């Protein structure tokens, strides 16, 4: 049991704002390193040319504080809230929203959300998508993930049969990547969630993208093998950087798993473009 601790909405607003601006104008070290490895591994000249541009772009984005990609995304926020935290000066989700609003307004980021039917822009990139885990302790961890629409469009979920097993899972993931082709801006990172329910598999897949790129599943040898085998299959498709052909279609496959109902085998695939942007802070 930790001591009760106050965290102010002001601090949350400020933190969320800075995280989204930073996430949009830089890549994390693990993503940069994975792209450098990809450049070494890629054998197609056109693929090498694309990867050179991607690496040059990141340096430039940092230096000029320009977004890495014009699609600065729908704002996804993962919160890990210690149960001994007391939020002061307002409402937690209201503060997260305000931080997102300020990031997209003051950071000159694109407002990419609209009414699904009328297609009228919401003009402030609100509302964000917020997921909260309540945990022990008195801290608040905030992860900001601006998610682009092109790669999100290529993601999917399937309710497989228990009989499909490991091979069925692998086939579904590889098929998603083949179907996506050049659309999600390869080289991609593939997050996969196995088990739980339909919506939990999707959330597991999305959260798997937050793992440092290329770090194998830390908990389960079977998943480590599945990640490795699936990545090898994906890189045999020949899609390559930007779909111009090559041997680096994905930088990594990252899988997480939970128990599911005896009747089912939910599998979800979250596809992330090479501009894999996320930043976190601990309050």
């Amino acid at each position: 049991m930790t001591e009760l601790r106050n965290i102010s909405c002001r601090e949350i607003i400020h933190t969320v704002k800075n995280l989204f601006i930073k996430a949009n104008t830089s890549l994390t070290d693990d993503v940069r390193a994975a792209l450098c490895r990809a450049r070494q591994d890629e054998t197609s000249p056109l693929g090498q040319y694309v990867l050179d541009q991607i690496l040059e772009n990141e340096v430039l984005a940092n230096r000029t504080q320009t977004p890495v990609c014009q699609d600065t995304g729908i704002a996804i926020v993962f919160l890990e809230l210690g149960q001994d935290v007391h939020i002061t000066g307002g409402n937690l989700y209201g503060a997260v929203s305000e931080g997102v609003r300020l990031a997209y307004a003051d950071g000159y980021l694109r407002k990419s959300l609209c009414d699904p039917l009328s297609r009228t822009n919401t003009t402030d990139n609100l509302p964000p998508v917020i997921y909260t885990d309540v945990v022990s302790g008195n801290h608040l961890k905030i992860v900001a993930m601006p998610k682009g629409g092109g790669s999100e469009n290529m993601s999917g979920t399937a309710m497989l049969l228990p009989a499909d097993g490991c091979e069925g899972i692998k086939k579904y993931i590889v098929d998603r990547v083949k179907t996506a082709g050049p659309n999600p801006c390869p080289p991609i990172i593939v997050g996969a969630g196995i088990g739980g329910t339909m919506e939990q598999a999707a959330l597991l897949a999305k959260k798997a993208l937050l793992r440092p790129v290329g770090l194998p599943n830390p908990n389960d040898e079977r998943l480590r093998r599945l990640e490795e085998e699936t990545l090898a299959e994906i890189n045999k498709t020949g899609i390559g950087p930007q779909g111009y052909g090559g041997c680096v279609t994905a930088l990594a496959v990252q899988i997480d798993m939970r128990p599911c109902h005896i009747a089912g085998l939910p599998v979800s695939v979250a596809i992330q473009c090479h501009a894999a942007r996320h930043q976190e802070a601990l309050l």
Partner: protein
Amino acid sequence: MEQVITIKTPLTGDVCKSLHAGDRVFLTGAVYSARDTAHHRMMEAIREGNPLPFPLQGETIFYAGPTPARPGMPIGAIGPTTSSRMDPYTPELLERGLKGMIGKGMRSSAVREAINRYCGVYFGAVGGIAALLTQCVQAATWVAYQDLGPEGIMRLQVLNFPLIVINDCHGGDLYRDRRLPDEAMANNERRLL
């Protein structure tokens, strides 16, 4: 790598005929940004017999929605969006004189046929390198649909914009040449309205 070809907009039939899938190109001149909802509105204008926001003859559309410009800058970050979402609208625009398209990803068979029939060209720009591409944009002015925010139509003056020819008017197709999976081709056909 092959030599880079330098071309200027507006595009003529002869320029389009000189381009082949896989060619690297530096494009200079005016292009128009337009994506999902802008295309929807242009089709509405055509159906209702109203004039289009800009004359299509010889012009090039860039499937893009930029970030807002910082003070003193012509534009924010800009780069291509997935072209296949515009496939349902594209053959009609090519028929009405559109020549060039800039985006990313595959086109439907209907679009590829229209590119051959009306002698157009589809260029690929690399996605996710917007900080780099924005350096090629010298000026940007509003043309129409400003209420759509990033989806509005802007006239962009570009200099040596780096592109690769994906579909040429001779039936050439970079993705087919690179043997992309059949599943990817089928996916785009399914998305046709």
